[in-house]
Each structure stands twice: as structure tokens, then as C-alpha cells.
């Protein structure tokens, strides 16, 4: 989780990602941010997030995104 928070914090230092639960709905993360996050996650976790997993539910909060990463790692 620490690594993920670090990735997100680099993109938007002004946001508290531990508490924010509507990153997509509040338009904090845009499509460019999402692509950057996926590239970083791939780099640091070795997990490829496929396009169909890019949904508001998976990206609205750091915890939801972390759950997605865990799930994809387990599937691997």
C-alpha cells in the first residue's frame, strides 16, 4: 500500500489518498493520470492492469486500486 500511495502522491501531492473515496467521481484523476498510474504499477508491482479493469469502482480510492492489484497478483 505504501508504494501505491507513493505513486499516487507523486501525481497529486495535494490529495490525501488515504481518505479520499471518489477520485474519479470528483475528477481528481483524469485519463492521463490513470495511464501513468498503470505504467507505474506495472513497473513497481509487476502487474499489468488490463483496460477493462479501468472502471470508476477500481480507481475511486487508493484502497480499491490496491485490492485490484492484489486480485490481479493472485490471478497471476
Amino acid at each position, binding site marked *: 500500500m505504501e508504494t501505491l500511495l507513493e505513486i499516487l502522491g507523486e501525481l497529486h501531492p495535494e490529495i490525501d489518498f488515504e481518505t479520499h473515496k471518489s477520485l474519479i467521481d470528483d475528477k481528481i484523476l*483524469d*485519463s*492521463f493520470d*490513470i*495511464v*501513468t498510474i*498503470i*505504467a*507505474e504499477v*506495472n*513497473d513497481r508491482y509487476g502487474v*499489468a*492492469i*488490463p*483496460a*477493462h479493469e*479501468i472502471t470508476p469502482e477500481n480507481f475511486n480510492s487508493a484502497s480499491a486500486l490496491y485490492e485490484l492489484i492484489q486480485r490481479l497478483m493472485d490471478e497471476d
Partner: protein
Amino acid sequence: MLFTSYEFILFLCIVIGLYYTIPKRFQWKLLLVASFVFYYFSGWSNLIYISVTIVSTYLVGVKLGNLDKQQKLYLKEHKESLTPEEKKAYKERIKVKRWRWLLLCLIFNLGILAVVKYTNFAIANINYIFTLFKMNELSFVNLILPMGISFYTFKTMGYIIDVCRGKYEPEKNIGKLALFVSFFPQLIQGPISRFDDLSKSLYEEHHFDAKNFAFGFQRVLWGYFKKLVIADRIVAAVLEITKNPETYDGIFVLVGMIYYAIQLYADFTGGIDITIGIAQMLGITVTENFNRPFFSKSITEYWRRWHITMGTWFRDYIFYPLSVCKPMLNISKSSRKRFGEEIGKRIPVYLSTITVWFTTGLWHGASWNFIVWGLLNGVVILVSQEFEPLYAKFHERFNVANTFGFKLFQVIRTFLLMSSLRILDCYRDVGVSFRMFGSMFTKLNINELFNGSLLKLGLDVSDYVVIIIGVIIMISVSLVQRSGSVREKIAGKPVIIRYAVFVLLFFSIIVFGAYGIGFDSNQFIYNQF
């Protein structure tokens, strides 16, 4: 059959009349027949094109569903005997099969679109190269472009990709799938609905709901007002300016640019209002396609609010898959090593953005004008993205971000920027478009606006009065919409005011609409895409 024709009004009355009188279980079947009848009027050969697309999409959808079932069954039956590695290998084999079927369907349907829409464009470009080498030119082919083919092809592509991704089950009834693809109000200019958004409301039984019907009718009226009173009136001046670039340069390019923005907005949003309004009268909910786009403060925001279903389609089915595919992630990794973090991480975003905007341009039309228009949109978006830190510093230094004046400046800047890019929609080729854009700065003479020239563009004083009042009404409605539905607000007023508003709207279309003798019935701009 144009939405603005008398035939369409008659057709609509018959469909709605039957819709609420026949047994409810036949409603979706009636809509399917109505959609095919509607499309038949745009040319019988169009029915063949759309039917082929429906059948191919249906068959591949069923095949994908069967593969999914086969996988589930096999894994269930061999739950105990298979090792995790064997399970994974089996899933991978099925996945490859699914992707092959998907690819086949996409190539087939996109191939039809490519052949009918882009063959002559390709020939024109090949001929240009041939003439450079003094070779014989190829002959153009006589192909009819079926109306709305770009819209319905994209709908089917979205459907089949989602089925392949396992987002939902494939539709088992070919008639129902055919209705989703051909639903007549949105067949020729969208919105590009997603199957999971539209299907439930499209197939379920609908009882007559007076409020829903009235709201739908009001929205249809509002759409006709925008199209007939504003768009079809101002189009005369737009054509006069843009078809005669030798006569109208300098300040007239700016005038044409603004007039075209008004025409396009009134035309496209008007058409979509009619579409969504008709669907609402039938009890069907269609996704919104606009969210007051001319109030956007940046080009990125503009594209989130203009032609929303097209933007999200390109985002979900091209931008994301391209940006996060394995080869792109590898490019990202290697370019970070080679060029450093800052540049390296931008490369996938840049490549995907430019690809998306190139495709968006090409989708709009088979011409270099649209391709350059698309690419310029992409470039402007990337440049503004790069300037983001600079903007942040500016806002930190000067506390103006939340002032009305600065917001107004941003809205006007975005409007002018988007209008400038749209010059490429209007002029005959890219060279003329750039020359005309340049003439706004090199030949600018504001006095030309006050020597009576504006009245020689095909609009007289009464036309201007109608257009100005129409535009004021459009802006006012958009401003009121910020705090909720205008129709809900009007519905809350006393009955006399309620009826007065809509009787006034109805008669203003009858009296001030640009139709009848002296006016050509104009196609909606987006019909040609």
C-alpha cells in the same frame, strides 16, 4: 427521412400511436420494424449494410458466449484433476480463441465502414502520388455511404468488445440486438449508446406516462427550435463566407467561425434533443451527449462535455487499451531508462493521445481537413497538459482562479480556440483553412463589419433579430440548467405559464423556423459522419 421532414412527423405520430395501443410485449418488435422502415427511406441498400453488420455481430457474440460457457463447464468438470498451471493454460487457450473471434468481427465490420467511407479518399491520395510520377490515375468508385454507418458500426464494436471482455452476456435474440443497433431516433447521429446502458429500457414494456411523455415532447420541441429557428437560418451566412474565401477573408473569417459555432451547436445538440426527446416519449432512456460544452474552461473539459458518447467510446475502446497494452508498457519502461522518468512516462500517453485524435479526425470524415483537425486537437490537449504546472504557479502567484472575470476569460478562450480549430470543418482544403486563419491577423479590418457587409451574407435584419433572440434563449436555458432541469422548473410554475411557454415555443418554430418555400430542408451536420 429527415427529422425535419413532414414525412418524419407523420411516421412518428403513427409509431407512437401504435406503440401505446398494441399489447406491451410487442412494443420492442414495433420499434424494430419502425427502425427498419425509417432506414429504408434513406435507401434500401442501406438495409443490406446494416443487416450484415447486425448478423456478423450477433454470430460472433453467440460464439463468444459459447466459448465462455465451454470454459466454465470444462473447469467445473475438471476441478479436481487439473493443476493450477493446466487451468491457466486452458484459460489462455480460450482467451486466444475469443480474441481471434473478436478481431475477425472488428475487421469485418470496420472493413465495411472503411471500404464505403474511405476508398475514394485513399484513391485520391494514391492518384496524387501517381501524378508526381506521371503514372495513370485510378478511377474513383461509385459507393453510397449509408447514413449513420459510423454511429451504428461503433455501437456494434463497443458491444462485441464488452462481450469479449465478459462485461455482459451476449444478446441471444437477434431481433433485440438488431433493435439496439438500429433504434431509429439515434440511428443516424447518435448518441453512441452502450448496450448495457440502453438495452434494458429498450426491451422492457412501457406504460403511457403523461409526465414522461410531456417532458419528451417538450425536449423534441426545444430540439426543433434550435435546429429550425437558429441552425437552419444562420447556415446561409456560414456557407456564403466559407464557400467564397477569395471574397470573405480577415474579419469575416472570425464572423464565419462564430456563426459556425452557433450553427453546429444548435444543429447537433438540437438533433440530439429530438433523439432523446422521442426516446423519452416512448419511455426509453438514452444517454446524454452534451453537458453545456460552451461553458468549458479548457479544451480537455470541452471534450468531456461535447459529444460525450463519442469521447468516452474512444477513451474506453482505443485510448485505454492502447495505453496499457503490453507493448506500450514495454515502450514506457525502455523509454524511462533511455530518456529519464519525466520524458519516459509521457511517451505512452503521447502516442495514445495522438492515435486517438488521428482516429477521431478520420471518423469525422474522409478528408485531410478532418485528420488535421483531429491531430491539432490532440496537440492542443498535450500542450495544455504540459503547461499545467505553469498554470498552477500562476494561480499560486495571482489568486484569480475563482473570480468571475477569470472564469469568463477561460470560457471565451476555450470557445475561440475550439472555433479556430473548426475552421478546418468549413473550408475546402487544409491550405485554404490555414490561409483564412492567417488572414484574421494579417487582413483584419473591423470597419468592414459596419459598412453593411453583414447584411449581404444571406441574412437580413429580421434574420439577425431571430438569431440573436434565439441565441440569448439558448444561453439563458444553459445558465438555468446549471441548477437543475429546466422542464422540472417550468413544471413547477402555474399552469398558465407552463402552457404559455410551450405554446410560444411551438409557434416560434412554426413562424420563425427556416423551412418551406425559399429554404432547403437541411440535413443535420452529423448525419454525414
